């Protein structure tokens, strides 16, 4: 469990950003992952008073506040209407309802967890992130940027009409995923995302299942206590094929 000397409920984003410039400070999302560490923080920065727990249905995009919980993502009718069951599917195996009522979107995205189901799903969509100082940048770019001390405000998800499908494999139901896979389609071009390799999710693009399958074989995979690299490489093909079949059924 972490320890902290101070706790500040930020009054505005400028204050949150200012406080976050100090290396000993940290922004507290849901706290579910942070509590597993033993770091000593000077000040915990709480964004829960800034209205960032909203899912906003805008004209051509859906704006997801950084403090939106995973349970909100799972049960939102706005997200279901626009993106099908993608968000429900990518969250439903994450521990349990009481965990998902705590864990936040911002915590998953800003931390760029390799095992993140959320990042895998978001990367299958056309997403941008809104940062306090960095402005708006594509999610795909954000996840590869060097980590700085900027503050994630929202994730902006473009309404594209396509509804990606989601697959994951786990050793037990509520465990971290062994591998995750999302597949989306836009105007005949397919976008596959393979995550929990166990490194961070990677995006592949192609115009056929065969081309995507060939790319999954070339991705780097790693081994950990959940699975070996070779198994993950094989699993990537399995999940991608399942996702492809599911997408065909949905499109039919």
């Amino acid at each position, binding site marked *: *469990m*972490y*320890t*902290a*000397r*101070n*706790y500040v*409920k930020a009054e505005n984003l400028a204050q949150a950003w200012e406080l976050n410039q100090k290396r000993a400070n940290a922004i*507290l999302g*849901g*706290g*579910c992952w942070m*509590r*597993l560490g033993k770091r000593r*923080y000077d*000040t*915990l920065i*709480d964004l*829960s008073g800034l209205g960032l727990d909203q899912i906003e249905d805008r004209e051509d995009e859906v704006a997801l506040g950084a403090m939106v919980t995973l*349970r909100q993502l799972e049960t939102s009718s706005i997200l279901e209407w626009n993106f099908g069951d993608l968000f429900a599917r990518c969250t*439903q*195996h994450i*521990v*349990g*309802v*009481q*965990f998902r*009522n*705590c864990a936040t979107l911002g915590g998953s995205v800003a931390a760029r967890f390799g095992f993140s189901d959320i990042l895998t799903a978001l990367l299958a969509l056309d997403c941008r992130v809104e940062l306090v100082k960095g402005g708006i940048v594509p999610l795909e770019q954000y996840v590869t940027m060097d980590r700085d001390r900027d503050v994630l405000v929202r994730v902006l998800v473009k309404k594209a009409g396509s509804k990606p499908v989601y697959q994951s494999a786990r050793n037990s*139901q*509520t465990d971290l995923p062994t591998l995750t896979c999302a597949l989306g389609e836009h105007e005949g071009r397919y976008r596959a995302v393979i995550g929990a390799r166990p490194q961070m999710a990677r995006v592949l693009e192609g115009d056929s299942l065969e081309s995507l399958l060939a790319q999954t074989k070339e991705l780097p995979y790693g081994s950990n206590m959940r699975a070996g690299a070779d198994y993950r490489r094989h699993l990537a093909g399995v999940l991608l094929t399942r996702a492809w079949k599911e997408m065909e059924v949905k499109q039919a």
Partner: protein
Amino acid sequence: MTITVLLNGAKRTDEVQADTTLFDYLRSHGCLSVKCGCETSNCGLCTVHLDGKPVLSCSVPALRADGHTITTLEGLQEEAAEFGAFLADEGAEQCGYCSPGFIMSVLAMAGELKNPTVEDIQAYLAGNLCRCSGYQGQLRAIQKYLQAKGGAKR
């Protein structure tokens, strides 16, 4: 630092540290039904309701509960006893250590889901681990409880 919360219907103001968890705060204020079972945000034993929603009190900083309503099993004794009778009828109370968190989740589910299927129930309660592993008895108890309340599918 000071927090003011509505705990089991009673308003109270207390001093807490920056890193005090809601779990430690509740235990230190007499809510001994709230238990720690894992230290990894995984087991569901410490489940309480924060503004009516089930949360892991081990992961929520006490300061984040400032201005909010917290309900523990101590605040839902009548409802807990009612459901507990169904657990006992099915022999599903077992060692009892996970029961408080489990009952808090069941009561939250009963309020949140309309006519849940077996799969809905299993999915909702996936975050409540039972070391005795007697999940089938718990499932029967929940189904019979919900049927008695007028809302469960076979």
